[in-house]
């Protein structure tokens, strides 16, 4: 077959072209991805290790870490339950309007985070009907932790469910149907058949959702009210430090999330080798 091709090199580019293209791609990635990562660590340690340690153990930093952990945990749990229910309903049954729901699931990805946060202010802020009602009972949602959780949940809603739906669709319904005819009930089918089949996809979705929830900035910025030590998540805390020209502290706190991003990429790669 290939004997007919006179010149084998026609199936690839000349060596010099290949090397130039590789060099161009790597140079581009170094400028756009490598240098920004390096500069974070350089700026963070600019004023020495002690300064770095003081910045990341400062009381306001710690309280921003606490709020971020709570927010991320709650949104992950909510979106996990939702993703399992939605993926089950969408892949195991046929109903009208399925495509409409599938389009809805992608919506938070294309809406500006600022608008995502704004809708919760419009719905629950002190000038809205619902907000005034909540005010009478002294329930604070906007400019408080519940608002931050709601906005984060909205923004991160697609990440788990988008991993599960294609995976469960591909696996079909036969295994579950077989279990059903053998007398298994719904929960048994789910825990014994479906869950083991989707565990890697689920992990993948959780990791993406986690990274996005921790780093969410725009939506959270709208609903938080920036109350120091109370409603600041880690990214908002970094913004405040930066705007106060406290650059080394801002970058010091940023190293925490940068390390987390690198760990996320590592786990992501590991899992995709495992199940692809």
């Amino acid at each position, binding site marked *: 077959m290939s004997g007919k*091709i006179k010149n084998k090199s*026609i*199936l690839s580019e000349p060596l010099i072209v290949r090397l130039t*293209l*590789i060099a*161009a*791609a*790597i140079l*581009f*990635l170094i*400028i*756009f991805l490598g*240098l*920004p*990562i390096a*500069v*974070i660590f350089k700026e963070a340690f600019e004023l020495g290790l002690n300064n770095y340690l003081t910045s990341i153990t400062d009381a306001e930093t710690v309280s921003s870490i606490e709020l971020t952990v709570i927010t991320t945990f709650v949104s992950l749990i*909510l979106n996990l*339950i939702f993703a*399992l229910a*939605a993926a*089950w309903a969408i892949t*195991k*049954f046929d*109903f009208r309007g399925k495509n409409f*729901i599938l*389009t809805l699931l992608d*919506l*938070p990805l*294309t809406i*500006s*985070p*600022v608008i995502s946060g*704004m*809708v919760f*202010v*419009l*719905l629950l802020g002190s000038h*809205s009907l619902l907000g005034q009602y909540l005010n009478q009972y002294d329930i604070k949602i906007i400019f408080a932790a519940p608002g931050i959780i*709601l906005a984060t949940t*909205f923004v991160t809603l697609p990440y788990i469910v988008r991993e599960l739906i294609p995976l469960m669709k591909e696996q079909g319904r036969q295994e579950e149907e*077989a279990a059903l*005819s053998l007398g298994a*009930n719904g929960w048994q*089918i789910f825990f014994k058949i479906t869950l083991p089949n989707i565990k890697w996809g689920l992990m993948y979705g959780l990791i*993406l959702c986690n*990274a996005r929830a921790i780093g969410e*900035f*725009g939506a959270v910025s*709208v609903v938080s009210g920036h109350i120091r030590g109370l409603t600041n998540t880690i*990214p908002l805390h*970094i913004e405040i430090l930066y705007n106060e020209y406290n650059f080394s502290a801002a*970058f010091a706190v*940023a190293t925490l999330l*940068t390390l987390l*991003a*690198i760990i996320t990429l*590592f786990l*992501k*790669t590991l899992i995709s080798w495992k199940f692809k």
Partner: protein
Amino acid sequence: MEAVNISNKVFPRKKILPGFGLTFGFMILYLSLIMLIPLSTIFINTAGIDFKEFWNIVTDERVMQAYKLSFGASFIAAVIDSVFGFLVAWVLVRYDFPGKRIVDSMVDLPFALPTAIAGISLTAVFASNGWIGRYLSDIGIKIAFTEVGIIIALTFIGLPFVVRTVQPVLEEFDKEVEEAAATLNANRFQIITKIIFPTIRPALITGTTLAFARALGEYGSIIFISGNLPLKTEIVPVLIMSKLEQYDYQGATAISIVMLLTSFILLFTINILQWWSTKHK
């Protein structure tokens, strides 16, 4: 097992799995509470102003400048992403070089790194005293606090969308087609432009549209690098934010409606493109 097989033959596809009511009901309730009811407030709030007022808000000079900047900068960034995204995907799929796996997983960095951190670090690199900004300012190019800075941040944000949409299509591309073309005496340039490029074009367009859509709404990385000067370097999301801070909810929602409609149209276009690309396989 025998009984199962027989019953499957007698009643094909008659088995209905349990849990439809519970899971479907929960899905609809959750979507309504977290997504639909909050989103509907935009339309309810805009319904409160008449069309003339709405028109005045969205055609105000400051708003128009912001739209122009947002659409223009996002478009340029998406085009840069399409060129370099294609290059990166090509190099990762077609060539071997040391450290390829690390480079491959690095591409997702803009997904994983919080946007605010991307903003402050890109500003540090491209500011006039930064590692790269220093040399560019010597030749008279200012990046931080200009439109160029906005384009750079948006390029960063959008890159993985192009690479990750083009890469799988390139991987699937059948090398035998190339060999066949080569036996027919096609040269390398013809093979690339006439055979490989048309195959990946739909994916490239989809990836670029995704990068553009993502860039339009971007906020976190921009506020640090752009300087946010009204009429000059103020993008739409920043303008919406400043209206909200002044409690001008009508202004903010009117501007958002235009952005939202654009997002819907883009989402629709992406779906059409995906349908088109699967049809033309």
